[in-house]
């Protein structure tokens, strides 16, 4: 994007962890890492597509951006001028030597949505609206369309009371409805029309950014196209920015300027839409593209559908989080002890005979079995084809001592997001070379 435009939204290392509570006293027993260090920018008038499978944290990001969920860590900046963005990036690179201290302070106090309060936050509310997936649930069944669409106008006292209805009609007309729909209840409309009402409500305050959380996935394909065209036209007319959350790749290709692919709370690939569709770098992106039936380009024909479950986000894998399902995994992907335990699913007797697990960190463990025979069996199993070759190679040490088995791997850092040859960012050991 050109440098003269503002950056509407800038996510910096955003983290959202949900506590897992148990028992009568609601003790926190763990954290679900729903979003784990996500950074990307949305420019003015730009559409950024956020893709990933269910449970990858894309909706959580949408909710964080719209201010529904407080962040665990990280920052979301709103509406940064190019100078401010440069200053911010500078500040991140050289934390110690701050050149533009006053500018950083100004950014923190006026643009950081988790720090601004009062009128500034109210102002942010006006500028960031959201359209939800389920239009049945996003429109109150007891309110008339006129109430629903004019409500934001009332809350923010945008116009006088006698102008409310004309403004509401105007908004309805912009989304392809009319004044004959003013006094109806939401259940009297079809899914596509209800989604139009949602869009009218989101437009009411003339926002700069709209978070679209799978706005079309509950609709018929023909209606989907209508809604997408409407969104497209509105963007052109009003210079809106969209954060488009979806799992539908053909929709994202149609809509987005940039794509952010997420997996298990982390960005695995980010870049321009055409780059990612033409030359995906990360194996997960490749798998997603291959799994999409209407994109029958044979580039991805060697990528089979992903098997295996998504790892538990309360205990995300170390190193590369995708390696447990990755068809092209390597020795250096960051294997850990949990992987061996996951692979023992088919050996129930072996799992049952584990007496205790002493695990000082993710890469070292001492498994104690009931009999030394089981210990030896484990070592044998690890040597067989049940365990992928890359993983076997990654094991640094596996030794049997009586009933105990000591296993250790080389510790690996989280794989960083790096620039790959096509200009997009990718989080994969293969792209690092």
């Amino acid at each position: 994007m050109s440098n003269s435009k503002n950056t509407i939204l800038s996510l910096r290392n955003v983290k959202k962890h949900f506590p897992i509570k148990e028992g009568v006293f609601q003790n926190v027993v763990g954290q679900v890492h729903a979003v784990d260090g996500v950074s990307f920018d949305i420019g003015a008038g730009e559409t950024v597509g956020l893709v990933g499978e269910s449970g990858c944290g894309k909706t959580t990001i949408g909710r964080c951006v719209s201010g529904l969920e407080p962040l665990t860590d990280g920052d979301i900046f709103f509406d940064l001028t190019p100078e401010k963005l440069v200053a911010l990036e500078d500040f991140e690179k050289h934390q110690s030597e701050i050149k533009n201290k006053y500018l950083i302070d100004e950014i923190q106090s006026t643009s950081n949505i988790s720090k601004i309060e009062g009128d500034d936050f109210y102002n942010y509310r006006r500028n960031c609206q959201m359209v939800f997936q389920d239009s049945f649930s996003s429109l109150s069944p007891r309110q008339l369309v006129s109430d629903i669409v004019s409500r934001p106008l009332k809350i923010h006292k945008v116009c006088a009371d006698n102008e409310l209805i004309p403004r509401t009609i105007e908004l309805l007309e912009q989304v392809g409805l009319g004044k004959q729909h003013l006094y109806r209840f939401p259940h009297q409309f079809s899914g596509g029309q209800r989604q139009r009402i949602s869009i009218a409500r989101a437009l009411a305050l003339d926002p700069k950014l709209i978070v679209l959380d799978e706005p079309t996935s509950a609709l018929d394909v023909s209606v989907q196209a209508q809604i997408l065209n409407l969104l497209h036209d509105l963007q052109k007319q009003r210079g809106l920015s969209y954060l488009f959350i979806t799992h539908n790749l053909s929709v994202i290709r149609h809509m987005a300027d940039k794509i952010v692919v997420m997996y298990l709370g982390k960005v695995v690939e980010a870049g321009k839409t055409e780059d990612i569709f033409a030359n995906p770098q990360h194996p997960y992106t490749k798998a997603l593209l291959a799994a999409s039936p209407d994109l029958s380009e044979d580039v991805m024909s060697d990528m089979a559908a992903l098997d295996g479950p998504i790892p538990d986000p309360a205990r995300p894998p170390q190193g590369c989080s995708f390696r447990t399902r990755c068809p092209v995994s390597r020795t250096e992907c960051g294997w850990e002890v949990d992987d061996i335990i996951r692979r023992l699913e088919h050996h129930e007797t072996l799992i049952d005979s584990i007496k205790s697990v002493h695990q000082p960190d993710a890469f070292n463990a001492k498994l104690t079995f009931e009999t030394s025979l089981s210990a030896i069996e484990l070592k044998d199993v690890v040597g067989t084809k049940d365990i992928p070759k890359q993983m076997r190679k990654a094991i640094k040490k596996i030794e049997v001592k009586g009933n105990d088995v000591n296993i250790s791997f080389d510790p690996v850092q989280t794989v960083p997001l790096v620039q790959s040859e096509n200009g997009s960012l990718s989080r994969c050991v293969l792209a690092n070379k």
Partner: protein
Amino acid sequence: MKKNAQNAGIDEVNFYDSAFNVRLKRNLEILSNVLANPTTVLGLIIVILMLAMAIFAPVITEPNTPDPYQMPRDWKAARSAPLTPGHILGTTNRGGDVFYGVVWGARTSLKLSILVVSLTVVLGVIIGSVAGIVGGKVDEILMRIVDVFLSIPELIFALAIAAILGPSFTNIILALVIVFWVKYARIMRAQVIRIKQREYVDAAKIMGASKLQIYLKDILPNSFSPVMVQATLDMGNIVLVGATLSFIGLSEAGIAEWGVLVSEGQAGISAGRWWASTFPGLMVFLWALAFNLVGDGLRDVLDPRTETKR
């Protein structure tokens, strides 16, 4: 052109309907759905007759002075059978006019049920909403208290409380309030938890609506219908339980109340004087039946599952 295609799906009949008309139409629609069920209509007719009797009690019978809620005593005509001149439904052992008791008993019952229902609904809705909205430990504590209340059968619980407080009509009201609020707290909590996860609540938050606005405009209206159904059913139940307590003697003696009247006529039953207990008993039965029929009818129409999709 695109617009026309969009509008084609919806009939153009009510082009300039005002919001008020649309709301009225919807309420009439709900009412006509309620009236579509013959048993509900039967219940409604009985309810209306009962209410009319309660409201026009001073017109139907001459109010007793100084306190119209006290039964008039005609000691000379005690134990007279129904259709005696001046005492259409006969009198009790102690000369109380059964007809007066039946008519003014409706007024007492109405007073009792409306007072108890409104107090319990307010109390239950407030506590249930707090538990549902605040959640966490507050919810946990409030709901354990509710569990304790719910673990005791309501009649026995009300009896125990009324007995502790001492026999008086006010104490019956108090006992019933203490027993009946828990149901509303439970229902309201469940509803609030269900509704606050709806996306329209999120949408209101994103708009910048205050918490109070969200509660009053989004959560409360959408979670109130089960409370209304329960309140209608309880209008009947409360009179039933209240009459039971009066019958046992936990109410003030001699007041015009169906339970008191049944207990007063009880002694005469073995001697063949059936009327003093039968008529007020029948009234309790009809009152409870009627409100249960109406409540059931309301539940069918206001069922949250049929609310949005039809």
